[in-house]
């Protein structure tokens, strides 16, 4: 009798383990810490994609109510997906979209924009990725929503989707 209970318990234990591990298979194992404080955007200097003139960011982020800083690259597939949403956001007059081209070749970047349209008012180059690190970014694509006091009020890691567009629209109203 005791043996039977033991065997049943062991079987249940293995089934339990199996279910827990099986469910865990689909979970994302990337942990992103939440940062509460709204941080000021740092100043950075970089070359512009088309004119190749060096521009400082403090001359860029003036005279608009809200800004979007979008880190993108032509080799990044999710960037392709989110591009149509950026084009949508571009119709908003109180929003200025600045692009940061991450570790990309300028020829490929220009091709990408020719194909899909250009929602950016200015595109700065980040050829070695150091500007992104100094901004506190993880990689491409990544989007910062910045207000007129140059504070980062929202940080989106990964591509923008329909739901996030609605959130942004609510925030900038």
């Amino acid at each position, binding site marked *: 009798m005791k043996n039977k209970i033991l065997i049943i318990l062991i079987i249940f234990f293995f089934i339990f383990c199996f279910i827990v591990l099986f469910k865990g298979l689909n979970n994302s194992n990337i942990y992103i810490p939440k940062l509460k404080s709204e941080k000021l955007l740092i100043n950075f200097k970089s070359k512009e994609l088309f004119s190749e003139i060096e521009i400082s960011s403090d001359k860029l982020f003036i005279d608009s109510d809200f800004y979007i800083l979008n880190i993108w690259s032509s080799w990044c597939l999710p960037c392709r997906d989110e591009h149509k949403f950026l084009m949508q956001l571009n119709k908003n007059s109180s929003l200025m979209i600045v692009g940061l081209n991450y570790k990309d070749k300028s020829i490929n970047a220009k091709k990408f924009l020719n194909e899909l349209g250009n929602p950016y008012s200015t595109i700065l180059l980040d050829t070695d*990725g150091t500007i992104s690190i100094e901004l506190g970014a993880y990689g491409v694509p990544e989007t910062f929503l910045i207000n007129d006091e140059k504070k980062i009020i929202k940080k989106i890691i990964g591509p923008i989707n329909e739901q996030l567009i609605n959130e942004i629209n609510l925030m900038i109203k």
Partner: protein
Amino acid sequence: MKIFKFFIIIILIFNFSNLNSQETDIELSTKISKNIRCLVCQGQSIYDSNSDFANSMKMVIDKKLKEGSTENEIYQYLKNQYGQWITYDPEFNKKTYILWILPLLIFLTGGLIILRKIIVIK
């Protein structure tokens, strides 16, 4: 003879501290990158990883060292940018106090149990 030994000890001590003080920028940057977690490829340090994120991070660390930042300043800077999770060394705060205090508590209770047994035997 005693004085001779004393001098040898003194010389040895100064040699060791000399070794430590000559930590170059490259060694320091390696040391720092081993203590920084790669946030994109989790489970690896920046030093181990070859992802875009890690490579850029190494460049930023080198740049900061060239500008004259100390090791602690760089950790502080990165914590400020990416949160506490980026270093492998958790701070003592509201969320982590159990982590820090629990081993001490276990050690103390273990010690108490041993002490009681000793007293009983005596």
